């Protein structure tokens, strides 16, 4: 939008009209999932044209490359690892209610992790490692009760590790290494499984204590 304003400052209103028209073409409405992914596309720089098939006029994004849907034509996967993408993530990604895999690793995506990713109730895997992401890890990720893989390593994420992540009991693999994280490493809840290797290469206050013995095979339900 700022680009628009500059164009006007050049008092080239005719040009503005052209740009507006162009922009409208790129925001034609697919279904809401298509819109969400289209928003991602417009915020990403894609030198290799891996998003070429993301045609916003399609009725749904299920035939887009690197997108996988379930039998109800709802998006379950976005696989864009190693795609030479830069640019930013968008909050609209939170509008993919059946998304299980968000694979955007090994790109040069910058900006922050949208807190709206915490709305992805079915997310199993969030792989954003090896990018240029900055800002803090959204506490909302603690809402992801089906998350098994959370790999945010090798970015420039700062701030503290949100305590809410310790509530993600489904978590099997956690890698926050090589960021700019500060504060302490939580040791309770789901974090009792993880060893210092998950947190190495940060500015964390002290290395986390060696992990406690594996938890007893059950957390006894209060009395059932």
């Amino acid at each position, binding site marked *: *939008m*700022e680009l*628009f*304003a*500059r164009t*006007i*400052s050049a008092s080239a*209103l005719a040009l503005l*009209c052209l740009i*507006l*028209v162009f922009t*409208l073409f790129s925001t*034609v*409405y697919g279904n809401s999932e298509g819109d969400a992914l289209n928003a991602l596309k417009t915020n990403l720089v894609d030198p290799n044209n891996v998003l070429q*098939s993301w*045609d916003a*006029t*399609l*009725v749904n994004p299920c*035939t887009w*490359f*690197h997108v*996988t849907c379930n039998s109800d034509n709802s998006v379950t*996967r976005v*696989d864009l690892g190693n795609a030479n993408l830069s640019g930013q993530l968008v909050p609209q990604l939170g509008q993919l209610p059946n998304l299980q*895999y968000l*694979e955007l690793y090994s790109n040069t995506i910058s900006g922050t992790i949208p807190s709206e990713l915490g709305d992805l109730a079915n997310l*199993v*895997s969030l792989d954003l490692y090896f990018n240029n992401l900055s800002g803090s890890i959204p506490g909302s990720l603690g809402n992801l009760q*089906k998350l*098994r*893989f959370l790999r945010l390593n090798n970015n420039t994420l700062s701030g503290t590790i949100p305590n809410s992540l310790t509530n993600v009991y*489904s978590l*099997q*693999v956690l890698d926050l290494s090589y960021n700019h994280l500060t504060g302490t490493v939580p040791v309770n809840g789901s974090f009792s499984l993880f060893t210092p290797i998950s947190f190495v290469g940060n500015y964390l206050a002290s290395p986390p204590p060696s992990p406690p013995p594996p938890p*007893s*095979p*059950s*957390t*006894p*339900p*209060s*009395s*059932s």
Partner: protein
Amino acid sequence: MERTRRGTTTRYFPIFALFFFLRLVVSLSPDGQALLSLLSEAEPSSKLSSSVLSTWNPSDPTPCSWQGITCSPQDRVISISLPETFLNLSSLPPQLSSLSSIQLLNLSSTNISGSIPPSFGGLTHLRLLDLSSNSLTGPIPSQLGKLSSLQFLYLNSNKLSGKIPQQIANLSSLQVLCLQDNLLNGSVPSKLDSLISLQQFRIGGNQYLTGEIPPQIGFLTNLTTFGAAATGLSGVIPPTFGNLINLQTLALYDTEIFGSIPPELGFCSELRNLYLHMNKLTGSIPAQLGNLQKLTSLLVWGNSISGPIPAEISNCSSLVVLDTSANEISGEIPGDLGKLVVLEQLHLSDNALVGSIPWQLSNCTSLTALQLDKNRLSGSIPWQVGNLKYLQSFFLWGNAVTGTIPASFGNCTELYALDLSRNKLTGTIPEEIFGLKKLSKLLLLGNSLTGLLPKSVSNCESLVRLRLGENQLSGHIPKELGQLQNLVFLDLYMNHFSGSLPSELANITVLELLDVHNNYLTGEIPAPLGELVNLEQLDLSQNSFTGEIPSSFGNFSYLNKLILNNNLLTGSIPKSIKNLQKLTLLDLSFNSLSGPIPPEIGYVTSLTISLDLSSNQLTGEVPESMSSLTQLQALDLSHNMLYGRIVVLSFLTSLTSLNISYNNFSGPIPITPFFRTLSSNSYLLNPNLCESVDGSTCSSGQAQRNGLRSAKTIALVTVILASVTIAFLASWILVIRKHKYIMEKSSSMSNLSPGAEDFSYPWTMIPFRKLNFNIENILDCLKDENVIGKGCSGVVYKAEMPNGELIAVKKLWKAKRDEEPIDSFASEIQILGHIRHRNIVKLLGYCSNKCVKLLLYNYIPNGNLQQLYGVVLLEILTGRSAVEPQVGDGLHIVEWVKRKMGSFEPAVSVLDSKLQGLPDQMVQEMLQTLGIAMFCVNSSPSERPTMKEVVALLMEVKSSPEEWGKTSQPLIKPSPHQS
């Protein structure tokens, strides 16, 4: 002037020599000295490269000949104009403030950072100040408010922060105020009465600007442009804007403004561009906008505007772009819009429009884009659409349009995109469409189109996307498609195409997507398809293809997804598969593929999404090389004839789903965390697989192949175990029957809850696998505090064994008179002991003495207990035991309830007949509780609620205390610590 002076110095050389240094330092005028500050910080190299600055000779007496500088007759600098000169300064030199005569200062796009010196406020003659497009930071100095002569102030496109100083509003001569694209915050000054000359007021692109749009702006009647787009401004559009009779452009898009569009805007008779998109506007489009005869662009998309499109809009005879997309606009499309003869773009997408497409739109002969998608339009497409000679794109997808596709589209010779998907169109695809020389996208997905795909499709060589899926097209896929050399996407899926897949498709070298799934295609997959080296997605599934998978498929070096399931393919999986280095998903399931899984599959390390080889006739072992597929997330090898050990699967650390059931695998099940989360149906019907503690040896019982030396030993042990079991059961039945009469006589006593004396009889313990505890350990745990549930057949305890192992112990209620306790017990142990089913907790063994029977179950924290709890809850509600011997169906209670609930019987019939007569409210509560129980027994453990959630759910089951009082047998104790 300068030349004569220089001549003088050369003539009088000694004098020059004398004054040389003085001259360098002193003789440049003070204005010139001040200007040199613009050079001082720059790197010499950059100065030299700038042709402008090369003329800035410090030895000149005045700067008046320097490029970009203008002087007054008195040699005072009155203008600096250096736009787009690479000054590269880290700050604006305060020395410039000494240029007291300066009237015009233009340093736009000169790569200056730092802040604006407040001393600039002293340049009282300044008429133009342009510092735009730099990297200036800090606030706008309030001192600028003293520049009483200032007419043009351009500070846009910097990184200025802070508030807009109120003092700016003092600039009574100001005509242009451009502050857009900065980081300004706070609100817009509301005292603006002095800015009577203002024509352009632009503050857009300051995303931190908040507050309302001051209504006072509406009194700046000279305004031609007001821009506040992409800000955080909120509130309503002030109706005072109706006074802005000179306003040409109102840009208020992408803000937080709400309310309705003021009808007063209809008085802004000069208005050309009205940009109100991406806001939170409500209400309807005011009919008064129809007065705007000069309006060319009306953009209101992306709001929550409702009501109809006023027919008066058709009076805006200059309208070129009308975009009301993504609102809640209802009613019909006014036929009067046909009067808009210069209209080029009509975007009405994503609204709630009804009725037919008015044929009058065909009078809008300038239309290039007509976008009506995502509405509720019905009727048919008017044949007059062919009058739109300039139409380039026509989007109608997602409506309920009926009838046929007009052949007159063939007259829209400029058409490049036609999307009529998701409607109710019938009839055939008119051949005329394929005569369009510019058509690149034809999308007709999801209609009821019939007939053939005409051979003439090959005429439309411009086609890039041909997507005809989900129709009822029939006949052969024309081989002429092979002539479409620009085709990238070809979707013919879910139609009735028959015959073979033409090998000519292999000529479409740029094809990236070929999807013909779910048709009636037969014959072999043409091997030449392997020439489609750009293919990224190939879906031939759900047809009747026969023969082998062509080994030429190994040429697909970009292929991402290969989907061939549900065909009749035979032969083996080609070894060339290892060349598919981009493949993320491979689905070959439901074919008749035979032979082994080729080890080459292990080279396809790109396989991340899914590998599905299920329901074939594959034999042999899982190749060791598959251990390289560490990124694979889903693997299905079920329903084959594979055998051998599955250790290699433990290397697949990314798996979240695995199915190897219905094979002949053997040996221990890996013990990785993932395998621990798997339900047993993932392994079902691999009789030789066994549980393991260390991951390499079997830990127990009948499947302990590795631990036992010979088949003889197995046979011996089996015989001994079996005979002991039978002998025990037989004698036990006899004993129990003998005691039956005694028990009947003392029924009053036996119905009391079992006391400690019941435990004192001698115990027998029959383990179904090796157990590391004894009966004493179990009895120690049968205390009230360990009760985790009660059912009509017994009480369930959680029991922690000395080695830390947790088991669940179910103590059966003592026999009632009219029941055969031994039958119930025997049937439960018989069935539960041998079935490994996802809904049934695994029975470890049982114990009994004269009075008490105990069943020992696995206690696995990740869900099985919840399931157990669910089973107990179901038992309470239905009055059935987990396994009901009387009915004879042998159905486990979970299956029984599921079957009942799936039938047409009223839900109440699931409940225990003794409960059905209770007050309606209670029955409702029980049904809610039944729902919770069914949650707990969900077939997928990961879907089951935690006990915490169960508590919360049970608390939701509303019940007043009085209601509890009406029943003698509370269903669930209402206290929160329970459950």
